[in-house]
């Protein structure tokens, strides 16, 4: 209404076209109402409403009262377990970045011409990626028992799925011309990959590996909650003893370290790309 001047009208001389055709506008409006409908319908079905949010906020005060004062006695074990968490993340990230090299080559259609191999690898990786990290942790803690090892295996599988997708897509987007030149000069497949493919994906490969390491640090905290070792497990223990001061100390430690790692790794990735 306010912009009446900008609207095209029949009796003006100039014809000012719409930004997009009316069919597109109609589609966008329809999509908006469909989303609105699902939003209202879902909150109806789950019985969630804004009033709950307001009521819940009053409990926050109680929790905060319990979380303080901080319990610094837990700092020692907290750092011990935090390093355990970091070790888990480092081991899992290293192995997944190594294993992902052949896997992502097999899952790239410009490298793997065999239809069956390509699709099998893709499908396997897609299936792996649909499993949440916590579920993987529950499975491998079940297999290997409580502790670090199950956690490492869970993180390895989890990051392999992510890396395989990111890196195989990077490989598929490279310039194939140098690879053709190498095949034409008598290079075999491995040589063509080492000289034609590797240099082209190296920056992304390094960046994604660091990114997966960041994800692994965070995920290793979470999977610790289900008994897969590391600081998450300590957090869970203190929580079950209602040791809220210690819980808060641990949370602050995790927070500081995760931010520090993400900052450093972010800077490195910036420098590479």
């Amino acid at each position, binding site marked *: 209404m306010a912009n009446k001047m900008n609207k095209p009208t029949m009796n003006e001389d100039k014809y000012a076209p719409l930004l997009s055709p009316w069919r597109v506008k109609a589609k966008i409006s329809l999509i908006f109402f469909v989303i609105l409908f699902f939003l209202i319908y879902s909150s109806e079905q789950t019985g969630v409403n804004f009033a709950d949010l307001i009521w819940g906020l009053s409990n926050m005060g109680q929790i905060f009262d319990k979380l303080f004062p901080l319990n610094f006695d837990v700092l020692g074990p907290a750092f011990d377990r935090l390093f355990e968490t970091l070790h888990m993340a480092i081991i899992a990230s290293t192995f997944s970045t190594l294993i992902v090299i052949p896997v992502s080559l097999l899952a790239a259609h410009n490298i793997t011409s065999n239809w069956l191999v390509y699709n099998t690898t893709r499908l396997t990786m897609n299936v792996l990626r649909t499993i949440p990290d916590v579920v993987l942790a529950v499975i491998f803690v079940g297999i290997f028992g409580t502790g670090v090892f199950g956690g490492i295996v869970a993180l390895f599988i989890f990051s392999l799925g992510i890396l395989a997708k990111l890196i195989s897509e990077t490989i598929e987007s490279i310039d194939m011309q140098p690879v053709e030149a190498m095949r034409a000069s008598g*290079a075999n497949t491995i040589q063509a990959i080492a000289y034609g493919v590797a*240099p*082209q994906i190296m920056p992304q490969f390094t960046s994604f590996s660091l990114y997966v390491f960041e994800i692994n640090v965070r995920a290793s905290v979470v999977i610790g909650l289900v008994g897969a070792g590391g600081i998450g497990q300590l957090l869970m223990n203190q929580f079950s003893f209602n040791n809220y001061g210690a819980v808060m100390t641990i949370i602050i430690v995790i927070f500081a370290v995760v931010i520090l790692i993400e900052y450093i790794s972010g800077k490195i990735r910036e420098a590479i790309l």
Partner: protein
Amino acid sequence: MIEFKDLSLVYPNGHQGLKDVNVKINDGEFVVIVGLSGAGKSTFIRSINRLVTPTEGELKVDDDNILDYKSRGLRDLRTKVGMIFQSYNLVKRNNVFKNVLAGRLGHTGTFRSVFNLFSQDDKALAYESLQRVNIDDKIYSRADQLSGGQQQRVSIARVLTQKPKYILADEPVASLDPPTSHQVMTYLRKINKEDGITTIVNLHFIDMAMEYADRIIGMRSGEVVFDGPVSEVTEETFEEIYGRSIREDDLRGGAEEDGEQNE
């Protein structure tokens, strides 16, 4: 010696790339293939190192039918047949020297090459090749920092490092301006004369073909419609090959020293 015997190639989509081609290319010749785009020039050249595989007939390189080759034979064939491309096909993120050393891959074992363990001789050869095309001052520049003409010279150095018996060049000057085009052709010609490497070049510029070739092969819709020494070629020959009169854009122009060659 390269010998095409009744060679035909039909692409999977039914397009006839080559049709009953009978050509014999002798050692040391500098042959230019001319024709409109789509005439089969690229298919002709790419058959020789089996980047495409002809469907009928025989193609002999050094008296051996290369159509029978499997992986090992193919690698050996490609090691002795170097190739130069229209878009240079360098690894853009790698430096010039690494790109040139890649020419040795066919001569180097997998393990050694993956860990960059090239011999001193290989490195010396690569550097010498750079010097021959006057680009040794760019040895550690990244390939994508060079101009088109410089990149094509690096790709010539890469082929030289390969120590091939034959050089195939698929439209090597199509992406370059006239002066640079002449420079690149002059290097190819010089290498052909000095090293006696048989050279086969695809061109669609008539004046350049006349200036640099010993022998011209004309192609139209997959068939060889002319084959003879450059002295026998006239403007009518090109009109016959192209199936139409000659136009301005069939000429590259800009030859530095000896000017008008296309009469």
